[in-house]
Every structure is written in C-alpha cells, then in structure tokens.
C-alpha cells in the first residue's frame, strides 16, 4: 500500500483525478501534479500559513495533510477566487489587497486571501481583533500586517455595500463601481489620495534593457 492510489480532488470547481503515493502532501499534489502554483510553500513546517487552502470550506495548511486524505474533498485555492460568485473582475479580497497595499513581496498573499475568505464566509463584519485572530496562522514578513487587516476590512465593506445596494444579489459586471476592473486605469486603486504605486505604472514603465546600466 505504499503504491500510488487514485484520488479525486475538486479544486475550484474542477474535478481532478490523480495518482499519488501515500506520502504525497496535498500542497505538492496541488502545485506539482496539477501545476497550480498559486498556493505557496513558505516554511515547510506548518508555521507560516502560505500554503493555506480551503478544504470543504475550512482553512487548513496543505503542507500538514497528505493528498490521499483529501480524496473527495472540495478545495478552493487562490486561482479560484476570481471565479467565485462574489467576484467581479477580482474577488473583493483581492481588490482589497490591491487597494490597501496589503502586500509587498506577495509571498504570503495566497494564504492570507484564503484565511480572509474563511473569515468573511463565517463573519461578514469582523472587527480588527477578529481579523487579526483569523490571520494569526499566517506570517507576513513585509507589511507589519496593518495593511492586510485594512485589505480584509475593505473586502468586508465592499461585500456589505453590495448587499445593501442590491439586496444580496451578486453582481458580475465589470466597471459597475464594485471595484477596479481590467478596464479601469491602472492607477485606480480606490483611494482618493493614491500614492501612484506600486501598480500605477508597473506595466507601462520603460525598464532598462540590456546594456543600459544607468
């Protein structure tokens, strides 16, 4: 029984059948067997939370579980967030991280998004302490956490606003005021006193090319 066995994982609504050894970790199955590298491996010890996914709606660390144990499970990873019913172009949490600068290097972000998603599913109007508790299993070495808390608050407000304006119906039209969309200017981050970065001109900027060392 050390042999590979067939398991089925439903990830972001798509069913995948794969052969895994018993020792195959869930995070490795997701990243390596299924090529979904949005779920990160940070510490490899179960401390950092970068590999957090939702398994049957609950946040868990996918480096602390064998893939075979998730046979038959419904899994959500960061790749599935923009296809959730509450997402427009991006998921409100992703909009929040963009608008509030909830990331710098971005390594912890997929796990933070999952922890935030699990929190808002359970508690749509969390206070700051509750948010901090919900992300206490996720380490961030860049932000000092404040902007991550603000990002989750942004998403909670965004979801509450929508509920108030449309009675809970989910809107899926881009550019309807529910957040920045692909059509919006890259500088629109949702803040009136936007600093202009880091996404302002990221893609338009003239990067130095080979041979220009100035």
């Amino acid at each position, binding site marked *: 029984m050390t042999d590979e066995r067939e398991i089925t994982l439903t990830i972001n609504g798509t069913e995948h059948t794969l052969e895994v*050894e*018993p020792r195959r970790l869930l995070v490795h199955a997701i990243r390596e067997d299924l090529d979904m590298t949005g779920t990160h491996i940070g510490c490899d010890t179960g*401390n950092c939370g970068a590999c957090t996914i939702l398994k049957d709606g609950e946040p868990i660390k996918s480096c602390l579980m064998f893939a075979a144990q998730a046979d038959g499970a419904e899994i959500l990873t960061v790749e599935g967030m923009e296809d959730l019913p509450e997402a427009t172009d991006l998921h409100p949490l992703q909009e929040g991280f963009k608008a509030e600068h909830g990331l710098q290097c971005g390594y912890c972000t997929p796990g933070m998004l999952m922890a935030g998603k699990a929190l808002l599913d359970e508690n749509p109007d969390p206070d700051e302490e509750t948010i901090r508790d*919900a992300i206490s299993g996720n380490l961030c070495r860049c932000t000092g956490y404040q902007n991550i808390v603000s990002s989750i608050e942004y998403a909670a407000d965004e979801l509450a606003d929508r509920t108030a304006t449309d009675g809970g119906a989910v809107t899926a039209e881009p550019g309807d005021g529910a957040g920045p969309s692909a059509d919006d200017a890259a500088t629109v981050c949702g803040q009136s006193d936007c600093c202009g970065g880091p996404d302002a001109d990221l893609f338009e900027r003239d990067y130095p090319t080979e041979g220009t060392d100035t």
Partner: protein
Amino acid sequence: MKSAPFEHHEPTTVDEAVSLLESLDGPTILSGGQSLVPMLRFRLANPDVVVDINGIDSLDYLHEEDGYLRIGALARHADVEDSSLIDETYGSFADVAPLVADPQVRNRGTVVGSVAQADPKGDWGSILLAHDGEVIARGPDGERTIPADEFFLLPYDTTLDDNELITEVRVPTPAPREGSAYHKLKRKTGDYAMAGVAARLVLDDDDVIETARLGMTAVDITNARATDSEAHLEGERPSSELFEEAGELAAEESNPESDEHGDAGYKERMVDVLAQRALGDAAERAGLVKRRVSQ
C-alpha cells in the same frame, strides 16, 4: 522534504483499526497530523505503516454523557472552540481551545492526538490533569481506562501500548460549585506555551475549597500536577493571600529548563503568576466574587 515511504491504512471502524494495530509491524496512528506530518517529513518519525483514523466517523464527537464530558478521538480543537457545551462551566476548556496553535491547525488537530503526542508543552494534558480526566484506550484485549495521572511518562512517551488506540478522553461533568481556568504564556500566537497552568476548584456550601487541582504545561518533563499546592488550597477559603501561597508552591514544584525563551528562574516566576491568575478565574467561575489577584 518528503516522508519516507509508508503504507497507508484507512480503517473505518475502531475494531478494524485495533486489528490493524495488532497485525501490523510498528504502526503509527495518524489523526489530525499537525505534529505527526512534520515529524514524518523531517524523518523524525519513520514508520513503515501509518494507520489513518480520520475515516472512523464514530470517533467524531464531543458531548456530555453518563456524568462525563466525552471527547472522541476525531474531535478537533476547533470543535471544542465552537461547541455550545463549552462555556464558563468548562472554563479551562473555553480558555485553552483558542490558545492552541492557530486557526488552521485547530481545524485539523485533535484533542486526543495532542494528549497522545504527550509533548510536555501541549496544553491539553494539563487540562486533563486538572480535571481528573481519563484516557480510554482500545486494544486487542478490549477497552481500558487510564487515569490522566498515570498516563504521561516522559516527553512523547505514555503508558499506552503500541497496539492500543485512544478512542476518547473524558472529564467528569463539573460539580455545581466548580470553576476552572487555563492561563498560558507564549511569545506569539501559534507558539507552544513557555509556561501554562490549568486550575480547577470545587467549593462547598461554606465557600471552603473541597477540591483543588493544578496542571502545569512546559515546566517539567511531562504535563504535571502541583500536588503540594493543591493540598495547601484544600480546606481553605479562597483569598488573594492563599492564591499567592499556592502560586509559590506550584513554582517550587515545577522543574522548568532554561532555554531561548527564558531561564528556569523566570519560568518558575511565571508558574507562580499564571497559577494565581488561573486560581482567581477558577474561583470566580465557581461562584465567588472576582478575586483575581493580578492581571
């Protein structure tokens, strides 16, 4: 790093699990896996066979029955945290559940697995000790009940036999005038305790302490009771002075080791302080007015 290869068995009944444990060579039981999976990956544990009990649905419970709070082997820390049973009546349980590791780990890790792991820094052992708890084990010869007092031997070593499976841990339902609490010192969320103290007090009609229990975390080679301190408390009325004396006695009974978190003397002082706080909360929950001595 990957685990060494192992055989993975997934029994769906306790009987099946017990017969697997008996027939297989050197099996390791996998429940929540929040400690075991990293140990396998770092090859601190190298079993040839893993018996994964997560498919035994009959072990997934947390309820009161026949005078006990019974926690089945598949009840997760989060189940305790979310249970409507767990309120001030089970004060120490309400205190400890949100202090174990972090939310993701609490969704997978089990109370019984934590007890079975017998890490002296684990919180649940102290709770069991303070509540005169019991460990229910099933083996080839049937079921046996191990008092928590007789369960822990050494770090990661217990009186459980290799072919036995813990199906349940349980504590007696609280007496009418009983209160309990758990206080834990840790550097940050998710850390193991630097020190922790569980306290339980049962008062009689005259507010005299009938039963006192103190379980200590991370300050000895196993979770340990502070029996001198308990004896000093019993027969007395709760007071700040009494709890100060009890805290000092508990500190004397503890045997912490110096490490990067603090030297032994510091940890003893922390046992003193945590014991006083836990006793204060326990007394309050047992129905006395607030007598917390320090905050």
